[in-house]
C-alpha cells in the first residue's frame, strides 16, 4: 500500500487549480470564500507530502499554522460577508459593484 509522493503532489495541484477556477467562476461570495479554503488545503496537502519526502516535521507544523491562520481569516471573512449582506442584501459578487464608475 505505497502511494508515490507525486500522486499527493498532483492531487494537491489539481485541488489548487480547482480552487483557482472556482474562485474565478463562482458568483456567490461564500463559494468564492470556500474555494480559497480549498486552495489552502491543497497547500496543506503539499506540505504534508513534502514533509514526508524530507522526513522533516516542519512541514506538518506548517500545516498547523496554515489551519490556524485560515481559521482566523475565516472568522474575519465571515464578519465581512455578514456586514455586506446586511447592507446589500445580496451575496452575488457581480452585484457588489458600487465602485465601478
Amino acid at each position: 500500500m505505497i502511494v508515490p509522493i507525486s500522486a499527493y503532489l498532483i492531487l494537491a495541484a489539481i485541488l489548487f487549480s480547482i480552487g483557482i477556477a472556482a474562485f474565478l467562476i463562482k458568483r456567490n461570495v461564500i463559494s468564492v470564500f470556500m474555494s480559497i479554503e480549498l486552495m489552502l488545503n491543497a497547500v496543506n496537502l503539499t506540505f504534508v507530502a513534502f514533509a514526508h519526502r524530507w522526513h522533516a516535521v516542519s512541514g506538518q507544523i506548517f500545516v498547523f499554522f496554515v489551519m490556524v491562520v485560515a481559521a482566523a481569516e475565516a472568522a474575519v471573512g465571515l464578519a465581512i460577508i455578514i456586514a455586506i449582506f446586511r447592507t446589500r442584501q445580496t451575496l452575488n459578487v457581480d452585484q457588489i459593484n458600487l465602485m465601478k464608475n
Partner: protein
Amino acid sequence: MNPNTLALLPEIILTVAGVLIMVAEPCIAPGKSRRGLGWLAIVSAAASAVASVYQLNVTRATLAPIHAFSGTIQVDAFSVFFHLLIAGIVVVSLLGSLDFFDRPDGHAGEYFALVLFGAVGMMFMTSATELLMVFVGLEISSISSYILCGFRKGIATGSESSLKYFLLGSFSTAFFLYGIALAFGATGSTSIAAIAMALSVGTNTPHLAFLALGMIVIGLGFKVSAAPFHVWTPDVYQGAPAPVVGLMSTGPKAAAFAVLIRITFIGFPTIEHRWAALLWILAALSMTIGNLGALMQKNVKRMLAYSSIAHAGYLLAAFTALPSRGISAACFYTATYAAMNVGAFAVVTQLAGYDEHHRTVEDFTGAALRRPWLGALLSFFLLSLIGIPFTGGFFGKFYVFTAVVGGGHTWLAIVGLLNSGLACVYYLRLLAALYTRHPHEKGNDRAVFTKLSLPAALGLAGSALATLALGIIPGRTLDLTNAAAADLLAPNTAPYTSANCPAIQSSNTPDCQPE
C-alpha cells in the same frame, strides 16, 4: 537582554499597547472621546521606533545581527530600517486620523489597536527569515487591513472594499503559501538562508525552485499591487477610509517589499537571471498599467490607487539592479514613497471628510485657494509623486533608476522615466484643479472643509518634512539603506547547520518513498 525579547522588542511594545487599547475600548462609554487611546498608540509606535534604534545599536556594538527563536528571526540594519519606516508611517497616519473615527459610532479604539496590530505584522515580516514566520506576519498585517478597510459603519462602499480586499488578499495568500510549500519541497526547508544553501549545492529540481519563487512573487505581487495582480487596488482604495488607505498603501507594501527583497536576493540568488527577467516584466507592466489606468480616473482615491500601482512598478525596477545598489535603492524608494503617499492621503483625509463628499478631481477645484496650507501640502506631495526635484520622490526615482541603469537595464529606465512623464498628466490634473479658481465660486464651500486639528497638522508636517528631507538631505537615509543592503548581503551567520537543511544531506539520494 534575552535575545528573543530583544529581537521582538518593537513588536512586543506595539502588541502590548494594542492589547491595552483594545481592552480599554469597550470599557470606555460609547460617545466618549478615544483620543487618549490614540495618543497611547502614537506613543507606543514612537517607542517601538526607539526600540528599533536600540536594536540597531546592539547589532552595531556586537557587529552581528540579532538571531532569535532558533534563527527564525533576524534583526539587522535591514529590518531596523523597515521597523523605523513602519513606525514612522504608523505615527504619521495616526496623527493624521486621530479624530477621524472619533464619533459616537466610531469605535476609534479598535481602529488604533488594529493599526498597531497591523504594524506588528509588518515589522514581523521584515525581520523574519523563515517563510513560516513571514507568512504569519503577512497574515497579521493583512487581517488587520481587511477589517480597517470596512471600518466606516454604514458606508456600503466600505464593506465592499473590505470584502474585495479580503477575497483577493486571501487568494494571494494561497499563492504565497503554495510557493512556500514548493520551496519547501525543492529544498527541504522553509528558512530563507537554508533554501539558498540548498539551492547552492544544487537540487535535482531546479524548475520546482523557480516555480516556487514564481508563486511567491505572485502572492507578494498581489500584496504590493503589481500589475497584473493589481485588479483589487482601485476598488479597495476607493472604498476604504482615506487614512486607512494612506496606511495600507504604504506599510504593508513596504513590508511585502522587504520580504520580496529577502526572498529573491537572499533565498534565490542562484536563479537570479530568471527572476530578474520576471520582475523586469512585472515592473514595466505595473508602471504602464498603473499610469494608463490613473489617466482615466476621476475619483482622486482611485487615481492615487493606480498611482500606487505605478510606484510599485518603479520599486520593482530596482530588483533588476545589482544586489547592493538594488536593495539600497528599493529601501530608499520605499521610504520616500511612504512619506509622500501617507502625506497625500492625510491631506485627502482632511479635504474629503469622513463621508467623502469631495471625491472627484472636480470636487477639489480651487481647494488650494480656500485652504492654502492644505493645498500647498497636497501639491507638494503630488509634486513628489510626480518626481519633481528637491522632493523625496525625485531622489528616490533618481536613485532607483541609477541602480537600474547601472544594472544594465537602460531600457527599463527609459520605460520607467517615460512613464513618470506620463504620470505627471494625472497628478497635474489634480494639482491644476487645486489651484484653479472655481468657475462659479460658491461661498458655502468653505464650510464643508473641516478645521485642521493640531495632531493632524503635526502629522502632515511630519510627512512633508520627511519628504523634503529625503529629497534634499538624503545622506543619512542613504547610509542606513546602504547599511541595510550590506547587512542583508553579509555572509549569513545564522545558526543553520546542515542538520536543519535536509536537502543538503540527502541531495544525492533523495528519499521519496515512505517507509
